[in-house]
């Protein structure tokens, strides 16, 4: 098994290289330059030219790419033009925020989705099932940013129950206060994200439960004289949860991608917000670093899913 994981990691190397080239070229292809908009429009064009020159922006792309990679291995992702700070430090400060938010959203999502999916599947066609399906359709139809904006307006501004910006209150002094404040800040965005991000898991789990209910092995269990509640516990739930568990790896990356919306609406200082800002400021170094990180996380998520599946499903064995 470790061999296979190692092999998968090795395969990821060319994938990451390809990804980095693509990312780098895409960033280069974007119109404008990092100085547009941030420099006095009356500035001397010659001076801009000079700035481009000393920043190496006039070199051929492969030269720039090579410089970037060499720096990368020195832990140097370059300086952000916008913040005038090393990109590593910029991301360092925000990665924790984003992962914390994504992780918590995932826990809430599963906490909502698993019981709903199982319950709907078990009572297929009855009223609770209809209600749950209606709920998932509604959440499926409404775009996530609409929900976020509505949520922040109602619970943040009108009712004032939750903070509407930032990741931690500046009043927090002690360690406990800091943790509490951080938790308070992510509660609303992760709740909203979870309540409206359950649709896939609920629908998938529901149909898995319905399939399992009509499967031959459940019929065998019934003819063994196993009571209905034990059939659900020992046979249906475990077998239906299997594909969901394997899906967890992918869903982490999904949540990271979703953080772009959430962080922007909630002005939450994470990687997503940084990403959006960097795009509007053509902050190449930051953009390339972030896209690369997101890309690698996606690859890791896929690998994670494969590993989880091989652990929970005896039919899939990684040799």
């Amino acid at each position, binding site marked *: 098994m470790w061999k296979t994981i190692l092999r998968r990691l090795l395969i990821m190397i060319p994938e990451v290289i390809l990804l980095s080239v693509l990312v780098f070229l895409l960033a280069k292809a974007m119109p404008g330059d990092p100085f547009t908009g941030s420099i006095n429009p009356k500035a001397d064009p010659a001076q801009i030219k000079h700035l481009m020159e000393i920043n190496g922006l006039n070199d051929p792309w492969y030269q720039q790419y090579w410089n970037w990679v060499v720096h990368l291995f020195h832990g140097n992702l370059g300086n952000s033009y916008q913040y005038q700070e090393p990109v590593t430090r910029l991301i360092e400060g925000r990665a924790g925020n984003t992962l914390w938010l994504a992780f918590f959203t995932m826990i809430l999502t599963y906490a909502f989705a698993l019981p709903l999916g199982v319950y709907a599947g078990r009572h297929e066609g009855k009223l609770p099932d209809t209600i749950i399906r209606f709920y998932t359709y509604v959440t499926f139809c409404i775009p996530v940013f609409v929900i976020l904006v509505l949520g922040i307006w109602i619970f943040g501004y009108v009712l004032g129950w939750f903070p509407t910006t930032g990741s931690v209150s500046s009043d927090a002094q002690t360690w406990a206060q800091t943790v509490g404040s951080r938790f308070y800040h992510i509660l609303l965005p992760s709740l909203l994200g979870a309540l409206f991000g359950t649709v896939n898991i609920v629908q998938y789990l529901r149909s898995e439960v319905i399939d399992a209910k009509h499967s031959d092995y459940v019929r065998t*269990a019934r003819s063994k004289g*196993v009571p209905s509640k034990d059939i659900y516990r020992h046979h249906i739930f475990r077998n239906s949860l299997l594909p969901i568990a394997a899906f967890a790896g992918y869903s982490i990356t999904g949540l990271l991608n979703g953080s772009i919306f959430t962080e922007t609406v909630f002005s939450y200082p994470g990687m997503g917000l940084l990403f959006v800002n960097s795009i509007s400021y053509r902050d190449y170094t930051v953009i390339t670093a972030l896209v690369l990180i997101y890309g690698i996380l996606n690859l890791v998520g896929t690998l994670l899913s494969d590993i989880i599946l091989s652990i929970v499903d005896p039919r899939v064995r990684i040799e």
Partner: protein
Amino acid sequence: METESNFLNIKDVSTAFKIDGQFYDAISHINLQVQHDEILAIVGESGCGKSTLATTIMGLHDPAETKISGEIDFEGTDLLKLDDDGYNEFRGAKIGMIFQDPLSALNPLKRIEDQISEVMDYHTQMTKAEKHKRTLELLDEVGIVNPQRTAHQFPHELSGGMRQRVVIAIAIACKPDLIIADEPTTALDVTIQAQILDVLRAIQKENHAGIILITHDLGVVAETADRVAVMYAGQIVEQGTAEQVFNSPEHPYTRSLLRSMPQRDNEGDDLYVIKGNVPSLQKMPSTGDRFAPRIPWVPESAHEADPVMHEIAPGHEVRCTCYKTFQFPDEQKGSVTV
């Protein structure tokens, strides 16, 4: 045939399924008895209701979608009057069931041992060690060479024949009086089929169980069964001992089936084809001989208005009176039948 030794008495049982809000009979007015130490084969083609009969005895139907009437007297208890918990006292303990597809009949995520000992969890007070010992015994009994190893395997690691042996081990774990085997060998190769049938026979001898063997394969019936019931369109049309049914078949359907089989002596000839199709559940006529449309040359007067079973020899019963005059078209012309 109502003797003391009948521990299972199926009396006038009908099972109807809900289709588009209406109930249609899949089996109607079935009367059958099973004794200890016998194999009763129920034979018929797909859609004749033989599997429905099995699942009706097992109580595996969703009560919201089915309507069951009649009485299933199992050692003095009417199974049809039981609720689900009551039924669970019988399922697995006194009635064991074997299914057609041994791969899907086993939970893919559980080890063989867990799937076998699960039956004992619910019907015995055995300790863990006792259950383990019994599991190995059972695997040995159904002819698995290395029980210790197989017990720890998952279903996908076993061959089709091995899986079916495991399913049989589950069915007999609590030494049931009745074993229902629904097409137990259809998914298997002929050589494996022969082995599985041997195992079934050996088990029956050992436990004095009664076996209901459901199959479409006349050869399997002829080799295995003590008594045979032939089903067509939800009804039993002929029943008797294996010798009676195979040596002197009377009902036109039984005779047609035997005639449409490729046999040693009809190589190269065209096989007999039964005219028409089996009617669907919704189109099943409620009166008259259900097989009449398949033998259109037989005059209506030969059929009974409401065909019942006639005992033509001790234990040999045939539905409708049309069997008395029934001939195949080529027999009528006087030509030689092959």
